[in-house]
């Protein structure tokens, strides 16, 4: 298959730009969704920077992949069937990478950049992290290299996966047909993922197939009574791409520097975002628990502790 040498994301870039413009016009005409110039600028600049920094990440991907591939257990030829299997398997490992990126602060330091906008539109899809080369994210697909899928095939299907995820970053589309919502990741499911509402935190990690979330217990349906509030728990007061890219790394460095033991330092790097030795900060779990306690107290008429 000679097309495997092309990059789906590069080929799709003109379509990305065209669709952002179409969405802007649609939002202007219908009022469904929102854009803010400085937010859009930050997102687009980060998309641009991520392409530049992505060359470093690609070197890691192919270097690491080529090394692991030497120990493969089979030689898988590129056929329509192996292509389909590689696409689904890549999405499966994407789910686990994505889930880890929300649960391990080291990975979150990179991924949070994508979540840092309080808006949810197609330009948000282009707000890509620029520090991926400083995380071991590429290692999540090691099993695919070991199985013997050729590297160009894996790079290609992963590119297709990312292209798919572009269109789900929008408020302009409500719900898709039920059968589609049941199987695939959609704008509705992904709005939940980008929201800071207590019930939506750390949910819907899927790339293409929402089935993984349904299977592994991380799926939450969008509730029209609880509209998503986008961004991160502690929203950023800047549109500067460099500050956006570095803020969590800076936070980790400061916490590690102030650590009183190696165990604390490791906790600040590998524990979930918001972890602290004395529990004084908020994690997704504590936020959810606080809300559940509050709601229970409201229902029973007792004051929440």
């Amino acid at each position, binding site marked *: 298959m000679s097309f495997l040498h092309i990059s789906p994301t590069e080929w799709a870039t003109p379509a990305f*730009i065209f669709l*952002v*413009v179409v969405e*802007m*016009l649609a*939002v*202007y005409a219908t009022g469904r969704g*929102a*854009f*803010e*110039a*400085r*937010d*859009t*600028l930050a997102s*687009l*600049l980060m998309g*641009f920077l991520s*392409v530049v920094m992505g060359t470093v990440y690609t070197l890691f991907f192919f270097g690491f992949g080529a090394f692991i591939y030497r120990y493969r257990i089979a030689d898988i030829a590129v056929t329509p069937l192996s292509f389909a299997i590689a696409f689904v398997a890549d999405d499966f490992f994407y789910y686990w990478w994505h889930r880890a990126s929300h649960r391990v602060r080291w990975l979150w330091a990179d991924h949070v950049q994508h979540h840092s906008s*309080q*808006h949810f539109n197609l*330009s948000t899809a282009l707000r890509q992290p620029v520090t991926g080369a400083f995380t071991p994210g590429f290692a999540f697909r090691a099993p695919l290299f070991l199985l013997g899928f050729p590297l160009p095939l894996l790079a290609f299907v992963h590119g297709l996966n990312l292209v798919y995820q572009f269109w789900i970053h929008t408020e302009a589309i409500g719900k898709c047909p039920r059968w589609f919502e049941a199987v695939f990741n959609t704008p509705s499911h992904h709005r939940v993922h980008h929201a*800071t*509402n*207590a019930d939506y935190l750390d949910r819907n990690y899927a790339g293409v197939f929402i089935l993984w979330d349904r299977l592994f217990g991380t799926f939450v349906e969008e509730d029209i009574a609880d509209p998503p*509030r986008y*961004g991160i728990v*502690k*929203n*950023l*007061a*800047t*549109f500067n791409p460099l*500050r*956006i890219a*570095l*803020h969590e790394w*800076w*936070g980790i460095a*400061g916490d590690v520097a102030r650590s009183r033991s190696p165990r604390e330092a490791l906790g600040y790097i590998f524990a979930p975002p918001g972890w602290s030795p004395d529990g004084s900060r908020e994690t997704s779990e504590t936020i959810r628990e*606080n*809300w559940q*306690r*509050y*709601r229970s107290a409201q229902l029973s008429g007792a004051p*929440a502790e």
Partner: protein
Amino acid sequence: MNELLLYLAGSLTGIALMVGLNVLLFGRKARALDTGALAARLALDHPGFRAGDSVVAGDAALIENREDGAVWLVRAGGDKFVTRKLERVKRLSRAGNALDLRFADFTFPKARLSFADEATAQAWEARLRA
């Protein structure tokens, strides 16, 4: 080399055009600081939040949580709000009717609160120092 420069120039021009269209269609909105809306937002984000005293000071506002007495700082960030609980103020100083706050916060290092008069600034200064 020329191809790379062309790619960079093309990308940056494309970004400029898209942001230009954004400004043309939606303007440069700055969210008005309405304390009612701020209280509603804080109540959505923090269980049990009950708005107490509040004041709009320039492009920021202070709002008290009657539940625990904590004071929250809210600033408009474009058409959205950015909120911070004022518990780790690194430096606080007053010049006339303005309070200057500095924080150990990488994306929100400082804020200037311009009050309507000096007495109000003094009152909130005392509150923040308590």
